[in-house]
């Protein structure tokens, strides 16, 4: 072969190196996550100020303030805001607002909420005064923005929004859900046949699904042929918070991670070996060609 063809080949190699480096850079930057310094703070979730454009377009846009908040004077003729009150400017309205108000219109929903895990946690929190690791036990306002939530939102939009709102207190579960097929298809690729949080854990029931028969029932909504073992498939496949899982899932999870780790090591070793082999062979062959 003449040297001309070697040049051609090397030029081609160069054209290839650029995109590969670029791709590597992209992968790394995507894997690295967002930079650590403080980004511009976003507007607060709950604010003293109600954006009327959003409010009037929301599900509650036809309601008057007083419908939910009551008149701004209580029985002892205290005005609003009450400077003397011990919770003046100190308490999050989500902790003080009487969400029984929501039950006036959303009766069934409110009853279901009262039966669920979140309400139980709230009761416990009120009794003991202890706040759990995930934060305050959620009331209506922690998940739903009563001022801004729109009505008749599509299934996909609702699912995406709930992934975020559940994820504020359960970030590990959110991440492991998004690493699972359901999350990828449902949230990332907007496939409305995939299950979102409440499809398994129940809307407002907030079931923990530790119990296998209960889990199986939820699985069977979409997988009618599922059997008992099927409920042992781990959706939230993450070592974080594994202690909250049932024992069979915990032992399964440790095996999954061990084998997953082994296969990871395996592919890294194989690739390192073969890449260096190919690179060295390539160098030697080009060297030989250049010497001819």
């Amino acid at each position, binding site marked *: 072969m003449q040297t001309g063809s070697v040049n051609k080949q090397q030029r081609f190699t160069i054209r290839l190196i650029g995109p590969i480096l670029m791709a590597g850079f992209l992968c790394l930057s995507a894997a690295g996550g967002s930079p650590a310094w403080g980004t511009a703070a976003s507007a607060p979730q709950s604010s003293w100020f109600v954006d009327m454009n959003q409010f009037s377009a929301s599900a509650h846009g036809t309601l008057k303030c007083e419908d939910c908040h009551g008149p701004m*004077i209580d029985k002892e003729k205290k005005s609003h805001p009450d400077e003397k009150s011990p919770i003046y400017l100190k308490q999050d309205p989500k902790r003080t607002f009487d969400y029984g108000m929501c039950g006036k219109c959303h009766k069934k929903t409110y009853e279901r909420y009262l039966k669920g895990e979140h309400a139980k946690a709230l009761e416990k929190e009120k009794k003991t005064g202890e706040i759990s690791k995930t934060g305050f036990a959620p009331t209506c306002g922690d998940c739903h923005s009563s001022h801004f939530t729109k009505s008749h939102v599509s299934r996909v939009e609702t699912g995406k929004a709930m992934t975020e709102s559940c994820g504020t207190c359960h970030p590990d579960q959110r991440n492991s859900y998004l690493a699972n097929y359901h999350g990828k298809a449902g949230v990332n690729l907007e496939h409305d046949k995939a299950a979102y949080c409440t499809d398994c854990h129940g809307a407002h029931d907030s079931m923990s699904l530790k119990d296998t028969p209960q889990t199986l029932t939820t699985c069977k909504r979409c997988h009618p042929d599922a059997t008992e073992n099927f409920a042992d498939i781990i959706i939230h496949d993450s070592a974080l918070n594994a202690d909250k899982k049932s024992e069979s899932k915990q032992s399964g999870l440790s095996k999954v991670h061990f084998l997953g780790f082994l296969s990871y090591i395996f592919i890294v070793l194989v690739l390192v070996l073969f890449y260096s082999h190919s690179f060295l062979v390539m160098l030697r062959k080009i060297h030989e060609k250049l010497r001819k």
Partner: protein
Amino acid sequence: MEAFESCPGITDFEHERRRKREKYLMNSKTIVAIVVGVIFFATLAAITMTSGRNEFENPTAVASEDALVEQPAKTEPADDLVAAEPVIEPLVCLDCHRSPNIETNEGIISSQSFCYDCHKEKTCVRKSGTKEISLQVVQQDFIKQQPLHQYIACIHCHKDVSQSPHKSLANAQCRECHSVHGEKLAHDPHLRVACQACHFESKAVALNPETGAVSLANIDKKGNAISLSSHAMADMTDETSCEKCHFSKNPVGAPTSVLPSKGFICIMCHSAPLAMGHPIFGVAFLIFLMGVFATLYFWYQGKVCGEEKSIHKKIGLSSETIWSIIFSKQFFGLLKVFVLDIILQRRLLQESVQRWFMHALIFTSIFLRLVLGLFTSVGFFFNPESDMMLALIDKNYAFTAFANDLLGLFIIIGIFWAVVQRYIIKPAHVKTEIQDNLALVIIGLLVFIGFLLEAARIASTGIPADMTSSAFIGAPLAAILGVMGLDWSAVYPYLWYAHGFMAALLIAYLPFGKMRHVFNTPMTYFIEKVAGVKRGERV
């Protein structure tokens, strides 16, 4: 709303508000007048302290006007004020709770007055134990301290305070309008420092051990709570203001002395500003230029296109030649030489795979760092807001840390390999001269101190381990340094100057010794290409 209307205990301030509205309507009948009146009222409330009658906090004043309570307040024409809303009833809640549009002057004024309503008072305090910490912000003072920021809303910067519990978690943000300083004014460790820590007058600073971030502290050295309500700015032209962090045994892990910025010569391996940095960099560059001129002078001693005497003519003739080559077909030939022979080192590969590998470890790594540094510097100059550029100037960012450590490691391996070749294996083609040793020592020390410097930076700044894990050499080295128990923020300046000195030495040495091949060899390749010299015919 009916219930509200008939409620006998209707708040005093509401009536006062209604009375005021009616007063305005009595005085003016047109909408324009209403708007003017509202602006006047808001301005009055906001800017002059005298007319700032606070409905919330002045119950006595309202009580004196009790007679007005019974005044009928139905079908208020004041509805015009909220006419844009679909609600028929006067939504008094929204008089305060309507989200102000802080993009407009009107919204800014009304939202400012909302905040000043409480914060202008001396009684506006935060309790810290028994002590009361002032949260008072007086508008006149604020205008004096922040003459430009007086035209924006408080909640423009204090994004997350307009809620209960009424405290800021994210602090005031500046970056919606201002971009971070680049490598020149504040090199990358300062990316972790809150703007206020430098730009505000308050002297106490603190390190957040969880994020490694530095911000103004709300307790002083003795542990007493201090007020941060003053918006007075520090004089940034005064370098002593840097000594708020850069002093001996400082709490934030800053180097104990104020170091100069990187110089433009650092572009060889780092993103660098267009500044001299330290005078020694300038001196090094001058020596470098002198060396280049000396070399050129030496070259022009010879004949150029037949001309023997006039240097002026020689320069003219040679530049003519270069010009005509660049703008001819030959340019592509030169481009090929550049890519294949210079970047990919084809000729060295032809000589020996082993020599190519060793040289590539050093050369390609430095070259890639140069490319990365140039890309970062230029990119940051044009787009300092882009996430990618911010990531690239941050040496703790996963990609940047990994790339820098990996390429540094390659250089060290290359140098080590060269040393082994030269002193242990000693093949026939290697003739060791003092120049070779010097080049190896300078580059080797430069990179080695660089790694030490990185480790000392990680060890002293107290960045959490998970943020530095990508610096796969710097982080373990930092752990080792940490065990040694030295105060690395005190050692850091010495290391920095040592690294800078080695860099200056390398630059100054480039045109003289062995390192001259960086220019000579490519030049030779180009000339050979132009002159059509075949390989092996070289003199």
